[in-house]
């Protein structure tokens, strides 16, 4: 067996960092950052997830293949999100004069 053995101190350090980040994300939730709320919360979550993946799950010390597999998963997840949102976010773009139409004269007077 040639699995990577990480020292206990690494595990404890990672745990402590995760706790700190949890504290930060909770604290930040009570501050109104306007449109930044979501990106900040998400970024902290991504950092936390990355720590778990790299250290608790040993990906930092794993083969290139494992790294590739992990990256592939998130890459396709991103495809799902971005291409779907391409539709939703551009729905209103095609504008034509909404007054469009030639209402019959009779109904125009008011």
């Amino acid at each position, binding site marked *: *067996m040639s699995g990577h053995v990480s020292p206990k101190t690494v595990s404890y350090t990672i745990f402590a960092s995760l706790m700190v980040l949890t504290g930060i994300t909770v604290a930040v*939730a009570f501050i109104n950052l306007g449109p930044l*709320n979501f990106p900040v919360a998400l970024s902290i*979550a991504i950092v*936390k*997830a990355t720590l*778990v993946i790299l250290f608790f799950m040993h990906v930092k010390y794993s083969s290139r*293949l494992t790294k590739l597999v992990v990256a592939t998963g998130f890459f396709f997840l991103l495809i*799902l999100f971005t291409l779907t949102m391409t539709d939703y976010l551009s729905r209103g773009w095609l504008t034509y004069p909404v007054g469009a139409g030639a209402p019959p004269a009779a109904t125009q007077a008011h």
Partner: protein
Amino acid sequence: MSDSASAEASAGRHHAALQHQFDTMEQQQESATLGMWVFLVTEVMFFGGLFMAYLLYRVWYPAAWADGSRELDILLGGVNTVVLIGSSLTMALAVRAAQTGFPRATVNWLLATMALGGVFLVIKVFEYAHKVELNHVPGPNFVFEGPHARQVEIFLSLYFAMTGLHALHMVIGFGLLSVIAWMAYKRKFSPEWYAPVEMSGLYWHFVDIVWIFLFPLLYLVDRAH
């Protein structure tokens, strides 16, 4: 094709846990790890569908999302986050104990992990029970006061779908760990072969990661508005 005998055929000695389709323990271990990672990728995509729905309706109904988020108990959610990250730590230590050949420690860390997982689930049950009391469970009996009731229902639908599936994964993980702990107790693992411990560890950490996203997305977002 050359029919020269391969090296491992003459190697002779096989580990008891070596399956017939593999040549070496190393090959078997690598295959198991790769298989587990590929499985976790499918899990990512599985939860991905839910996150997609979450993303869309969050963009559509930001106000309802803020209202719904405020309905969730940040204290319980926060405690659960700490508990689950703690269980990830104990899991990592269990794997380390198995790698380095300390079966007693392996069992103990696994039991600690299961205990923390149990705490998480119990807290989750209390959260759900509270929602049931308030008729906040989406469906025909759903009641919610406020201007965005219908959109909040979607938020809570997603809340239940996401946390419910997550909890289901926890339950499965709990079952897995009990088997692994028993095997460790029976001294089935050694520094040469601890694949099941490592696999369960990967699974458990994955479940933790899902929660790392669920917590801010469901409990925290737009709370300050």
